[in-house]
């Protein structure tokens, strides 16, 4: 059963829920609307939403229990702001090892498009290819970070800077 809980405080949105294939698109649409409401321009909101979709699909496919916490944090950046998307879930050790390999590859590849094209063009079965993560870095211009504590994996992506909406309109 899917349960959702939302918190809205100081421009932070947090959702805790179980992901199946159908719920991933629900999250994507929600994140896109929330990002626009926070002031992210349309193409930036599409990019953050795409990132949320790819990360949530990974939860649906590879997590221990399909449960995840998804948060959007508005962080000041001078006179502008950035939106930080974080998806946190429990993952099996084998998947965590694969994630570490992928993040190492992403950090060693100066142009995210090169890694993305390489994974798109691979002829082997997809499996845990990291294609979704590579797409986020290549298409959404979001730098991704990996944080692991035991079995808990958190992947964060930071948007390009934008002018945040007024408090009253959020």
């Amino acid at each position, binding site marked *: 059963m899917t349960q959702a809980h939302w918190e809205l405080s100081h421009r932070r949105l947090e959702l805790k829920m179980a992901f199946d294939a159908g719920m991933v*698109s629900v999250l994507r649409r929600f994140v896109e609307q929330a990002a626009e409401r926070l002031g992210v321009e349309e193409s930036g909101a599409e990019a953050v939403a795409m990132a949320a979709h790819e990360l949530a699909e990974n939860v649906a496919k590879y997590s221990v229990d399909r449960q995840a916490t998804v948060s959007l944090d508005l962080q000041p950046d001078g006179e502008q702001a950035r939106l930080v998307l974080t998806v946190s879930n429990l993952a099996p050790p084998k998947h965590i090892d694969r994630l570490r390999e992928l993040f190492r590859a992403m950090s060693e590849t100066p142009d995210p498009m090169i890694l993305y094209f390489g994974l798109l*063009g691979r002829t082997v079965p997809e499996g845990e290819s990291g294609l979704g993560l590579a797409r986020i870095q290549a*298409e959404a211009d979001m730098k991704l970070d990996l944080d692991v504590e035991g079995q808990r994996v958190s992947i964060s992506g930071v948007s390009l800077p934008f002018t945040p909406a007024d408090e009253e309109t959020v």
Partner: protein
Amino acid sequence: MTAFPLPVIQHRTFDATLAIENATLRVKLAGTADLLVQQQLANFLDAVHTCATDHLATSVLVDLNELGFINSSCLKSMVSWIFKVRTEEKPRQYQIIFLTDPKARWQQRSFHALSSMCAELVSTQE
């Protein structure tokens, strides 16, 4: 008229259709292409390729105007299709033209990336 039924996907969240117009095939994708339909989309694109080579089509137009989203796995199925076309003998190759929605900027990013992987066969148009 064709001697066999044209491939089609009709899903709660995604539709795909194929029409034949002389030497051109027209594919229309609508809705959300994601985990729910990725195997169906891969099978559909295989069938489109078979149809295109059987008809010696010169081009396949892919109308994306009603496509709301496509995930990375479904994009990979598109790349597999493009590579199949590229490995055909020249007379059986055809152009793939993605007709993007100018209002959906994400489509420009995603499908321009595909066209740049194989610019001699793949292009985008608004």
